[in-house]
């Protein structure tokens, strides 16, 4: 899947959870949860959103691989259906 599509989906989902955030302001190399106030419920809603939009199932054991925005994009690209 194209990176722009993935980034766009991430942006939309994050906005619905944390409307005060704009993806343009996020440093892609710094852990997301240090930049955005996301509790475990928010994070779960984010994972559910990614599942719905990109059809990628992210098991709980993979959560720790998704610390930064770059990590997230790379992971989703690798796992998304063609």
């Amino acid at each position, binding site marked *: 899947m194209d990176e722009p599509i993935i980034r766009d989906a991430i942006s939309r989902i994050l906005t619905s959870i944390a*409307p005060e955030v*704009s993806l343009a302001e996020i440093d892609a190399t710094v852990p997301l949860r240090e930049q955005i106030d996301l509790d475990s*419920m928010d994070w779960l809603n984010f994972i*559910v959103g990614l*599942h719905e939009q990109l059809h990628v*199932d992210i098991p709980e054991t993979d959560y720790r691989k998704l610390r930064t925005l770059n990590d997230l994009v790379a992971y989703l690209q690798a796992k998304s259906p063609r």
Partner: protein
Amino acid sequence: MIEFKLPSLGADMDEGTLLEWCVRPGETIKRGQVVAIVDTTKAAIDVECWEEGTVEEFVVAPGTKVPVNTVLALLRTPGESPEEAARWKAEHRQAQALAPQPALAAAAIAPAAAVTAPGAAQRLRVSPAARRYAEQVGLSLDDVVGSGPQGTVVLEDVHRAQSQRAKPEGKPIVGAAAGAERAAEMRRTIAAAMARSKREIPHYYLLTDVPLEAASRWLAQRNAGRPVTERLLMAVLFLKAVARALRRFPELNGFVREGRFEASAEVHVGVAVSLRQGGLIAPAILNTDRLPLDELMRELGDLVKRARAFTLRSSELSMPTVTVTNLGEQGVDTVLGVIYPPQVALVGFGSVRERPWVDDGQLKLLPVVTATLAADHRASDGHRGALFLAQVRELLQQPELL
């Protein structure tokens, strides 16, 4: 004749502004039906009516701010004749010297669009939740395109507009003043409730460390076998354990009113939800102790979503019998909270951390959480409080039974 009054919506809400009526004169109301939407400093509340009757007339018009317990409408009881109704009104009008209110005809009920605070001239149709949220975040509704029925602006539209909002670059954000005022009002209501709590309630505090090895493992296994939409959070186990433990400790589940404690027969756990732009609200999940974990998770998710969208039901605000606050996500170990009056207890959970733990003479590394109880010493003593916390700890050792 039933006088439908504005119910108390929590210790820190003593007034509200009627935004709109959701029923018409002549309509028959079922128990639990939402009859009006009332705006408070914390949320736009769907006010439920717990009696059955037929709407006779509206006493308060949309746009009016009234204190709690104000009669908002009159409902004719089933079987009450028009003559009896008229007689009641005549007697009560004289007794209370109410200015005669013209009954609002069905056609005159303002749709959400036209309901505004006095002075504002809005032409848009906007849902109460969207209007309230927009104010809270300081966003003007002028440029928001509505995607709801008949072009109504709904909450999603406001979220979208917020994310697309260009950076201010020195230009003032339109509506920021209204948003700032909302935030200040919310701060004041929270301040009043917390100050009252510390003034009136003799708090005592207890802490206990709860090992969560079994709970973590059970949760991981369970979640691995389910679709992502059915995953459970540890928070749900905490809520259920607290709710079930409270059945055995009624002195921690109820209210102190006029110096007297009344235990509640039901357990409705108020969940402290932090609002994204600041502020705090603690609506209840009704009958928490009776819900299976899956359902509890769904209820929790839905409740948090609605709380953050500033739209809740009156029963969720007036009925919590205890409050649970889960601040572990922010990384703190322990929370020693302030009880929300007229409740008598606040249970807190800190972060789940890997800690050295001695188990059966062996040193291990386990996930552990610190659970705390803040309790009203007028209603309970430390001994019972300690037994309660011990029970919560025990219940969390057997998550499969929760």
